[in-house]
C-alpha cells in the first residue's frame, strides 16, 4: 500500500502550460501516473501532448476539469502570486488532495488558503515542496522517479533535494519505499510530520519510517513526542542545519533559528529522547533503519 496517493489517483495539473508545469507533467506521465487533466486559465479546449502521444485535455478552471475527468488530486505549478488562489480553487473543486510545489508564496495568503482547505476537509501538501511518490504506483510533483523503488520504508521530509539524497541511498541499499513525502520548507504548510507519521503507522505495508527535519519551528519536536506516544513502527531521523548560524534564513522560508528556538541540537535531542535514532550524515540513515528493522 501507500499513503495519500495510489493507483486510484487521477491527477490534474494547475499551470500545465508553464515551463516547469509542462516539463514535470511529461515526467509524471512517463512515471505512469494517471494524468487526466490540466488547467490554465485562457487555454481551455487545448490539449497537452504527452511523451507517447497522449492527449491531456486542458481546462480554464478546476471545477470544469473535475466535472469532466473525475480528477481527485491536483498539483500546482503556478507562480507565487497566484499559487494561494490556485490552492483555494482546488480546495473548492472537489479534489481531496492538493499538492502545492510553488516556492515563495506569501505566508499570509497561505494562512487564508489553508484555513479554507481545512474547513473543506481537503488535504494540502506544501507549498514549497517536491510532492510525493508511491513507487510503482503514482507520482505527484517533482521527485525524480528513477531514484525510488518499491519496498517497506516510509519517508517524510521538509526538504526536496535532501529527500532525493536519502531516497537514493535507501534504494541503492535495496530498501524500497511505500511512499516518499516532501512536506515543504515554508513556515505554514498543509501537511506536517505528524500527519504523515499517522498515515505510515496505519499503512500495513510500511514497516519503518525515515524522517528528515531541519532547523526552524517545532514540528520535529512535536513529531518526536508523537512517535514515542503513538507509533509501533521504528522511526529514524536526520536533522539538517547543525552548522546554520542563528537568525539567518537558510533558503527555506521556514528554516530559521529564532533566538535560541528551532536549533538542530534541540531537534536532535527531541528525537533521541523519544527513541528516534539520529544519523550524523545522510549516508548513515541506511544503517540506522536496517538496525531498527532487525
Amino acid at each position: 500500500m501507500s499513503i495519500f496517493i495510489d493507483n486510484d489517483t487521477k491527477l490534474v495539473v494547475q499551470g500545465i502550460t508553464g515551463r516547469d508545469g509542462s516539463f514535470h507533467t511529461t515526467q509524471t506521465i512517463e512515471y505512469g501516473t494517471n494524468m487526466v487533466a490540466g488547467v490554465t486559465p485562457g487555454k481551455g479546449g487545448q490539449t497537452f501532448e504527452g511523451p507517447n502521444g497522449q492527449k491531456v485535455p486542458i481546462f480554464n478552471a478546476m471545477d470544469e476539469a473535475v466535472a469532466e475527468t473525475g480528477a481527485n488530486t491536483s498539483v500546482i505549478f503556478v507562480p507565487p502570486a497566484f499559487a494561494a488562489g490556485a490552492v483555494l480553487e482546488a480546495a473548492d473543486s472537489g479534489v481531496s488532495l492538493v499538492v502545492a510545489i510553488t516556492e515563495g508564496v506569501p505566508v499570509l495568503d497561505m494562512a487564508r488558503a489553508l484555513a479554507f482547505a481545512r474547513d473543506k476537509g481537503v488535504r494540502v501538501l506544501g507549498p514549497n515542496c517536491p510532492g510525493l511518490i508511491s513507487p510503482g504506483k503514482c507520482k505527484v510533483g517533482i521527485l525524480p522517479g528513477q531514484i525510488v523503488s518499491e519496498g517497506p520504508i516510509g519517508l517524510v521530509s521538509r526538504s526536496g533535494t535532501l529527500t532525493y539524497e536519502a531516497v537514493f541511498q535507501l534504494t541503492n541499499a535495496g530498501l524500497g519505499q511505500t511512499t516518499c513525502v516532501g512536506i515543504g520548507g515554508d513556515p505554514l504548510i498543509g501537511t506536517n510530520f505528524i500527519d504523515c507519521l499517522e498515515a505510515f503507522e496505519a499503512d500495513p505495508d510500511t514497516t519503518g519510517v525515515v524522517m528528515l527535519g531541519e532547523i526552524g519551528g517545532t514540528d520535529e519536536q512535536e513529531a518526536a513526542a508523537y512517535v514515542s506516544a503513538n507509533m509501533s513502527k521504528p522511526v529514524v531521523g536526520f536533522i539538517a542545519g547543525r552548522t546554520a548560524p542563528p537568525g539567518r534564513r537558510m533558503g527555506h522560508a521556514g528554516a530559521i533559528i529564532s533566538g535560541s528556538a528551532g536549533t538542530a541540537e534541540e531537534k536532535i535531542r527531541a528525537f533521541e529522547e523519544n527513541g528516534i535514532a539520529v544519523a550524523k550524515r545522510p549516508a548513515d540513515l541506511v544503517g540506522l533503519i536496517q538496525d531498527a528493522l532487525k
Partner: protein
Amino acid sequence: MDIHEYQAKERFRAAGIPVPPGEIATTGEQAETIAAGYGGKVVVKAQVHSGGRGKAGGVKLANHAAEAKEQATAILGMQINGLTVEKVLVTPAEDIDTEAYVGVLVDRKKQAATFMVSAEGGVDIEHVAHETPDLIRKLTVDPRFGILPHQAFWLANFLYDDPGLIKQTSKIVAQLYDAFINSGASMAEINPLITTPAGEVKAIDAKMSIDDSELFRRPDVEAMRDSSSEPESEIKAREANLSYVKLDGDVGCCVNGAGLAMATMDLVKYYGGEPANFLDIGGSSNPDKVVAALEIITSDPNVKSILFNIFGGITRCDDVARGIVEATKRIDIKPPIVIRLTGTNEELALEILKDAGFSAYTSMDAVVEKAVQLAAGEA
C-alpha cells in the same frame, strides 16, 4: 526583511496608530536642529536592525537641543551587535504613565496571525512569556475575518481598567492588524505602548519584519530595504535571486535545495572542514544563475575549494552543467572545483561536463571529502 523603527512607525501612522512625530538625523547638527524644533527635550534612538538598542547605549534622553547633538554624535558610528549606527531617530520625549506590549506575528503552529499583549511592556516579551505566562494574553486571528471588534476589545481589556484607555487601545489593536496585513509582515510589535498622564495611548516604539515572499507585490515596502549592513556578496546574491548566507570557512558550497545545502555544510564540518557559505541555486535554475553563483562564491577571498552538490528534481542537471562550463569560460576561477551531479537529465549533464574536461562524482560523501582535502591543500 527587517525594517527600521522609523519606517515601521511610518507604516503604523498610515494605519492610524497614534505615534509621536520623529525625524531622522545622520549628523549631530541635524539632531540638534530637529530637537530644537520639538522644543528641546527629545529621545535620540539608534536605527539598526537589532534588538537590545537601549542596553547597548543606543537610546538616550536629551533635555535640550545641545544635548541631543552630543547624544546623536555619540550614537552615530556606534556598533550595536556588530552593526554600525548610521541614522538616529529624534523624537519628542513623552510623559509615561504605564508601558504595555502589543504584538502580532505569524504563529507557525496555529497557522495564522496571533496577537500577544501584556501590561508588562518595555521589557523582553519572550522573557515575560517564559517566566510569567499569566501576564500575557494571546489571540489567534482567523485570516478570513481579520481581527473582530470584540476580540480587539478582549485584548485591550486585559491591559487596562480605564474605559477610555481600553477604547483607544482596541482601536490601536485593529490598526496594528491592518498595518501588519498591508505591509505583508511576519511580525509587528509596539513595545512599549504607553499611557500618558493626560490619558492618551501612544506607540513610542515600533518593530516590523516583512515576509520576503511579499516583496514582489509591495514596492513601497521593498523601498524600505536598508542594505548598508549586508555583505556585498549577499546583496549580489539577492539580485541574482540566489539564496546565500556568507559564513567564515573556506569550502565554497553551491547546492540546489535548501535542505541539501544545509546537509552539505554539515557534512563539510563532519569531514573536518568549514563551509564558506550557504548557497541554494534553487529550482528551475538556468545557466546564468550558476554563473552568478560562481561569481559570488569566488568573490570571497577565503574560498579555497568549490563544491557543487546537485541533485536534480525540478532543477535539471544539464542546466547546471552548462552553467559551470559557461562560468569557467567567462570568469577566471582559481580555486579547484569538484562536482557532484545526479537526478533529472543526469546523463546529459555528465556528457556536457565530460566534453568540457570536468569529471563528476555521484556520491555526496566522496565529493565533500575531496573538497575539504582540496581546501586544506591535502589533495
